[in-house]
């Protein structure tokens, strides 16, 4: 009798195992991809949508559809049946086992009676103690790696899972590391290549020609520099004096004075002003913008294309000032000593504050035009006190102020929404105001021969007589978005963010020449040595003749470039998205 039970039990067990495996599998499939959602169907249907009534195809779809529905419902039925079957068998098994074991009962083991309760207890104690210890250790482990905040951990994990994403990440890391190394080697190599050892470096002369603000002195988009190389090659180090990595990211452009090159960088953790040596490219010093009263604890929300350090610094040869999207303004001397710092109020700016600074003698000019409170600030560079400030109810703008010579006198020209306004640099009194702008004004004006040129993608391109403030001409053939205008007294150069570049006639406003380069431009053109230098976002360099606007040459540099280069005699400093390099013949 018992034998029978045993056999039944055995058989049922085998069946149970087989069945449960089968069920498990089909259940899994059901859960994963229901037959109704096979990709084939969708693709076929889409195919059918595109090519009009293809009988065969439609037939195919209909059959497949029928098939999949059958599969779905049949499977569903099977599952239900299977489950009941499983339960039934389990029941049988248990009953059989019970019957089989009915006669035999557990009997005391030899070591059981009389049980040594105490011994077991103490053993249990040991085990538990150990277990607790292990748990505690793991816990401690956690606490140790506590520095890594978990959410990031969690994100990383997920990112790692997304295949291509993971790869791309690695790639990035590699590339960045790679570039890091490359930079180092480069720096040293170049130094060797030039046989400039430290002694000589120190004897190297200070540079005559400076570039003290965004797009050169007075932010004028022209430079008196001579002898700039018209071809270079980063990988081949041709005409490259040095290349250095930049600690923190930023879209601002380099500024040159003496033998110092200034740029800023920022991330959520810190905002910093860097000073490089123009001859060797070594990072001489860093000034942090921290511990500033009124500075926000959490970073303002900024657009990725703007970042926290979009504004270019300005210098007057003695002090250098920088501003960040947090509204922090810092001022340092040429040795990297922080003179003063203040927060002029966190800009209420949906993309992030981007207007660059400008210096005129000891006056620092800040175009502080945001959603709430738009004003022009003039600070004393010695102590940061406000020299004068001009409130206006202009709308938000991202463009940068320039200093133009209007009617023979230097004046401040600010392009905002809706007006281009000229101010007296001394006291900020308004010289003239022309309402001609609209939308989101991102590019900056230019000036040549006493005429002010301003253009914005959402409005038009206008030329204004600097003396009288009357509008000379308007045009809207091609309009810049981020890139700014550059001007000679004959031509106005404009680079759009959709790849068209053109030269307007400065007198009439008609398009003299246009090139469709089909690559976006955020960097601004600069007129140097009878040429116009222009970088595309992808890092392709275009060099035009400043007189005819014919394309002289163009070549890839291989590094994304959004900043505008700075020129000094014989040298050009370029900031790419990850490094800073110096071009010299």
């Amino acid at each position: 009798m018992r034998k029978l039970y045993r056999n039944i039990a055995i058989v049922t067990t085998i069946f149970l195992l087989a069945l449960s495996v089968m069920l498990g599998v089909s259940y899994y499939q059901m859960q994963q991809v229901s037959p109704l959602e096979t990709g084939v169907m969708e693709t076929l249907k889409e195919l059918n949508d595109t090519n009009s009534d293809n009988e065969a195809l439609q037939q195919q779809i209909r059959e497949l559809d029928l098939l999949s529905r059958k599969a779905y419902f049949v499977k569903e039925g099977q599952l239900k049946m299977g489950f009941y079957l499983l339960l039934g068998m389990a029941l049988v098994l248990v009953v059989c086992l019970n019957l089989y074991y009915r006669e035999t009962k557990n009997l005391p083991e030899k070591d059981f009676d009389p049980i040594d309760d105490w011994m077991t207890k103490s053993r249990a104690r040991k085990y538990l103690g150990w277990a607790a210890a292990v748990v505690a250790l793991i816990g401690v482990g956690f606490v140790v790696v506590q520095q890594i905040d978990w959410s990031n951990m969690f994100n990383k994990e997920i990112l790692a899972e997304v295949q291509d994403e993971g790869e791309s990440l690695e790639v990035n890391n590699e590339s960045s590391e790679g570039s890091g190394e490359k930079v180092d080697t480069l720096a040293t190599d170049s130094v060797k290549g030039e046989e400039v050892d430290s002694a000589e470096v120190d004897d190297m002369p200070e540079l005559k020609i400076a570039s003290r603000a965004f797009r050169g002195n007075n932010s004028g988009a022209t430079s008196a520099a001579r002898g700039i190389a018209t071809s270079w090659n980063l990988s081949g180090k041709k005409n490259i004096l040095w290349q250095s990595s930049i600690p923190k990211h930023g879209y601002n452009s380099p500024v040159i004075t003496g033998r110092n090159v200034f740029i800023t960088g920022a991330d959520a953790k810190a905002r910093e002003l860097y000073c490089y040596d123009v001859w060797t490219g070594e990072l001489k010093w860093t000034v942090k913008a921290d511990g500033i009263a009124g500075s926000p604890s959490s970073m303002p929300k900024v657009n990725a294309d703007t970042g926290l350090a979009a504004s270019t610094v300005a210098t007057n040869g003695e002090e250098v000032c920088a501003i960040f999207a947090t509204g922090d303004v810092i001022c340092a001397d040429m040795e990297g000593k922080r003179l003063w710092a203040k927060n002029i109020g966190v800009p209420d700016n949906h993309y992030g504050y981007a207007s660059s600074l400008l210096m005129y003698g000891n006056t620092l000019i800040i175009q502080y035009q945001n959603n709430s409170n738009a004003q022009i600030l003039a600070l004393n560079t010695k102590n940061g006190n406000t020299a004068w400030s001009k409130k206006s109810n202009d709308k938000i703008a991202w463009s940068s102020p320039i200093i133009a010579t209007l009617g023979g006198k230097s004046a401040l020209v600010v392009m905002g929404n809706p007006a281009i306004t000229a101010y007296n640099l001394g006291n900020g009194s308004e010289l003239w105001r022309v309402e001609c702008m609209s939308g989101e004004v991102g590019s900056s004006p230019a000036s040549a021969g006493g005429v002010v040129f301003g253009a914005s993608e959402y409005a038009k391109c206008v030329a204004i007589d600097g003396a009288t403030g009357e509008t000379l001409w308007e045009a809207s053939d091609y309009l810049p978005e981020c890139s700014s205008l550059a001007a000679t007294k004959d031509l106005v150069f404009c680079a759009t963010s959709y790849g068209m570049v053109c030269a307007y006639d400065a007198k009439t406003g008609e398009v003299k020449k246009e090139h469709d380069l089909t690559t976006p431009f955020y960097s601004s053109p600069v007129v140097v040595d009878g040429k116009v230098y222009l970088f595309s976002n992808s890092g392709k360099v275009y060099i035009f003749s400043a007189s005819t606007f014919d394309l002289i040459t163009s070549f890839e540099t291989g590094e994304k470039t959004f900043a505008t280069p700075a020129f000094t005699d014989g040298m050009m400093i370029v900031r790419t998205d990850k490094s800073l390099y110096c071009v010299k013949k």
Partner: protein
Amino acid sequence: MSEEKLKSPMDRRNFLRTCSSFVAGGVALASGGLLAAKASAKEGDVFWQIDPYKCTQCGRCETDCVLTVSAVKCFHANRVCGYCDLCGGYYRPNVKELNTAAENMMCPTGAITREFVEEPYFEYTINEELCTGCGKCVKGCTSFGNGSLFLQIDQDKCQQCNECAIAKVCPSDAIQRVPNDHAYKLKDHA
């Protein structure tokens, strides 16, 4: 070990035990009472139900119900329906000619059927036995039509889990508990 030895600890233990049991009992009763006050506070929300106006037809109702075939079904509010031949929930949006060939049908299980009422109107009905709650038709209807199709939890199939598995992954928090006598959130007027 003799009785004397054992006696005293025995008594002590008994004493301790009685005390602590009183404490425990007290605690249990007190907390029970407090919670009871809470419990009787307001009338009970019992069933899980979808708010059709929050629902975004993400399709998770089909996949995330604890049942192999979801308890979520598509309902049809006849009073909201336009009754038109060209139904955004019945046909795929890009049909060429309006026939019931597979390539034109929206519903993967053919749970939506319609019958002709009069030129040019059709009455649509849903076979809940076939419906999987995937919400394709609902999306079609809300985007193109008047939103007469909407997803509801079929209370007769729902297991009344202590915590609804769909609610936990619903991206628009459309699933809430509803009182016993308002088991459905329907769209049509009485």
